[in-house]
């Protein structure tokens, strides 16, 4: 159970915080560009990147075992199926 003792240093956490703030600035800037549909996907990609950082470092997922990682993956797959099937219905009705 070594991973339970993993301590993430303050320095590393602060680095993640700076990255998150930088990505926030980037996403606000991208929204100003008015790239039609492009900025919707750009904003969502940045949001996914930000949540990846939060989950990996702030929530320690990077240091967890296979069980939690696998469950997280399954949750995201379920959510994707959910969204995918709904849009399959909505778009082709």
């Amino acid at each position, binding site marked *: *159970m070594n991973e*339970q*003792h993993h*301590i*993430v*240093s*303050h320095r590393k*956490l*602060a680095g*993640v*915080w700076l990255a*998150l*703030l930088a990505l*926030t600035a980037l*996403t*606000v800037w*991208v*929204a100003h560009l008015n790239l039609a549909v492009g*900025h*919707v996907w750009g*904003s*969502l990609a*940045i*949001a996914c990147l*930000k*949540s990846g950082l*939060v*989950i990996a*470092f*702030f*929530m*320690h997922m990077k240091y967890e075992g296979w*069980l*939690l990682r696998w*469950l*997280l993956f399954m*949750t995201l797959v*379920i*959510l994707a199926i*959910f*969204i995918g099937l*709904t*849009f399959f219905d*909505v*778009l082709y009705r």
Partner: protein
Amino acid sequence: MTHSQHKDNAGAKLGMWLFLFTELLLFGGLFLLYAVYLSRYPQGFTTAGREMHIVFGTANTAILITSSLLAAMSVTAIQRGERRQALWFLGGTILCAVIFLTNKYFEWSAEIGHGFYPDSPRLATAPPGESAFFSLYYMTVGLHGLHVVIGGSLLAWVAVKVKRGSIHSGDYVLLENATLYWHLVDLIWIFIFPLYYLIL
């Protein structure tokens, strides 16, 4: 974890994560509704989305990210046995929660003052997309705000336990789980922010 009492820390954390997954699906459902209505009423959504105050949204994003950092730092501090430091970090997190909610109060007051609230006369005469946008906005952000209140209270309770010494470097799974909940609050806001404030 070598502790004389039987404590299943891995189990406690697994339970917390399972709960967080249900939360992700709950908010995922609301985001899905947003996406469906956006595709149905692109015009109304764009008009309504332009009414949002991007300054409030950006400030609250920075505040929540900072609060998440402080929560994560409190776990690091307790792991190193620095209780006082952990308490300061927790206090900072709760302060951020209060600032966030204060901003929310001013933001919502301004929006309600402009006649944007469910069933308002202004929205009743507006195209259906606009009232759909504001209904979803109040629902999603309101539910998120409720999570901020719960998360802040949870952290305050945990802080008392840290102060009393029942949470320490040998047994801190309760603090870990409370901060996990707090990070989820941040995580959801990371998606609310672009969807409601930026892309329209």
